[in-house]
């Protein structure tokens, strides 16, 4: 019983990070139809920049804020320099551009920061808390709370604000959106900035637990992409469900079977879901678009 709880807790922590990654994929996918494989680099950059800020003597909140803003700016720049100029190119070309951008960002991080492994102390100390026989790091609570807050704020943004609705309208039909006066290029820039910021938040929250280095982005992007596909690419709620499900499943496999099989099991699940539900668990059919 306490084993199960233990696995669930660690699964939820990892799952919250996957959910944030999947959310980043979903936002950019909705705005542009592009699957952005540089999403994992944003997570890496959030962690690395915070680590270096703290090492340079900045207070943690300031280091975190600068990491988020800097990464968001990089997201906007990625769109302006690499994606927007190729507008109208086939989506496959755009996806290859994002892979190129991921490799570039990884190399640049290796040069600008360094090639060491980094971490910093958890925000509320390192002493594990005990819950019903299981233990949890206070930083895990930070990760889960941070992801919850991010999803809640985003939900408010999309459902309450005019700008959020403009993003949804652009996702639904970019041509119609521009005709009703929505600046769809600005929406693209906003989406890249937002996704990058969300990635950075995930990275700076989880680094005290998982540590980070310049080359951790690719594996993160693959897991986040898998979570997004599982939940249904394009659905924010799907990102949440897909991320948490994948995290918990990995943790259960690692706990009850072997950590060697954790990736295999999640990919088998994804193949099953996509075979029987090609749109993912919560995705919507894209064929019946008006």
């Amino acid at each position, binding site marked *: 019983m306490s084993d199960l709880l233990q696995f669930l807790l660690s699964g939820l922590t990892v799952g919250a990070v996957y959910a944030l990654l999947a959310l980043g994929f979903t936002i950019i996918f909705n705005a542009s139809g592009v699957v952005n494989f540089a999403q994992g680099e944003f997570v890496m950059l959030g962690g690395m920049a915070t680590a270096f800020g703290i090492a340079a003597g900045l207070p943690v909140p300031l280091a975190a804020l600068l990491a988020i803003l800097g990464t968001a700016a990089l997201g906007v720049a990625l769109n302006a320099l690499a994606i927007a100029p190729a507008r109208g190119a086939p989506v496959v070309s755009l996806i290859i551009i994002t892979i190129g951008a991921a490799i570039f960002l990884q190399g640049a991080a290796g040069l600008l920061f360094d090639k060491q492994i980094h971490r910093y102390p958890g925000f509320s100390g390192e002493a594990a808390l005990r819950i019903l026989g299981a233990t949890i790091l206070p930083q895990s609570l930070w990760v889960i709370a941070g992801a919850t807050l991010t999803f809640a*704020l985003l939900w*408010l*943004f999309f459902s*309450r*604000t*005019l*700008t959020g*609705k*403009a993003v*949804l*309208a652009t996702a*639904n*039909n970019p*041509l*119609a*959106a*521009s*005709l*009703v*006066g*929505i*600046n*769809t290029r600005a929406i693209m820039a906003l989406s890249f900035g937002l996704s990058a910021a969300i990635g950075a938040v995930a990275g700076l929250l989880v680094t005290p637990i998982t540590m980070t280095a310049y080359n951790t982005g690719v594996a993160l992007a693959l897991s986040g992409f898998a979570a997004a596909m599982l939940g249904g690419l394009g659905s924010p709620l799907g990102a949440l469900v897909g991320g948490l499900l994948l995290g918990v499943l990995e943790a259960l496999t690692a706990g009850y079977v072997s950590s060697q099989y954790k990736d295999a099991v999640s990919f088998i699940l994804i193949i099953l879901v996509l075979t029987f539900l090609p749109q993912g668990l919560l995705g*919507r059919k894209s064929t*019946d*678009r*008006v």
Partner: protein
Amino acid sequence: MSALLDISDLGIAFGGIKAVDGVSFAVRPGEIVSVIGPNGAGKTTLFNMISGLYRPSQGQVRLDGRDITAMEPHLLARLGLSRTFQNLQLFGDMTLLENVMVGHHLRERAHVLPDLFALSSSRRSTRASADNALALLRRVRLDKGAYREARAMSYGALKRLEIARALALEPRILLLDEPAAGCNAVETAEIDELIAEVAASGVAILLVEHDMKLVMKISAHIVVLDHGRKIAEGAPAEVARDPQVIAAYLGQHGQDQVLHAER
């Protein structure tokens, strides 16, 4: 009254073939001008240039004297130019009401923070916007389906929804690309009435339509395109008698319809 929309020598080529070639004409406020011509004549292409989707290879578009050639569609919307599509461009995931409210959003001011926390000021403006959208839906007789998703509606209903959304922008000039295509006789008559009503309120209308009866009845002025060129223009009766127009487009059948409409 001087021209609101002024098209001069407008043209575009696709792979060396001129889809529209040196077309000029003008539309005054409150006036209904129709563009007619056989399939592939270049009518939609002309609309795509005026509305900023295609960059013309020659010529100019002026709105109220200001050069708006190849200006981006979202800026044109702000200047009061709005359009509908031959093959519909709607937000299928949204309800009819939301579709029209998106059109109305230009009239609202965006305040992210008050919206986020649902302050009364933003709730008030959302309510006003919803009321306005509902009134527009009533005008195109779609108010009963206001809360249904657009993707679930019939083609004829969506045609009218697109007009309502275009009107929500409170345009000064409205471009309608075959608004009555695929509609039954009753719906066509309703659209006809709606267009006349909108024009009477001072909005200039540029219309592409294959239903000759409708065109002849409501247009003040008709521009005839064939193979991308303007082959005639003038009042409906004039155009209908033009031998070139009859040869290119109207044919015996069309002329019968015209005479019928004139009676």
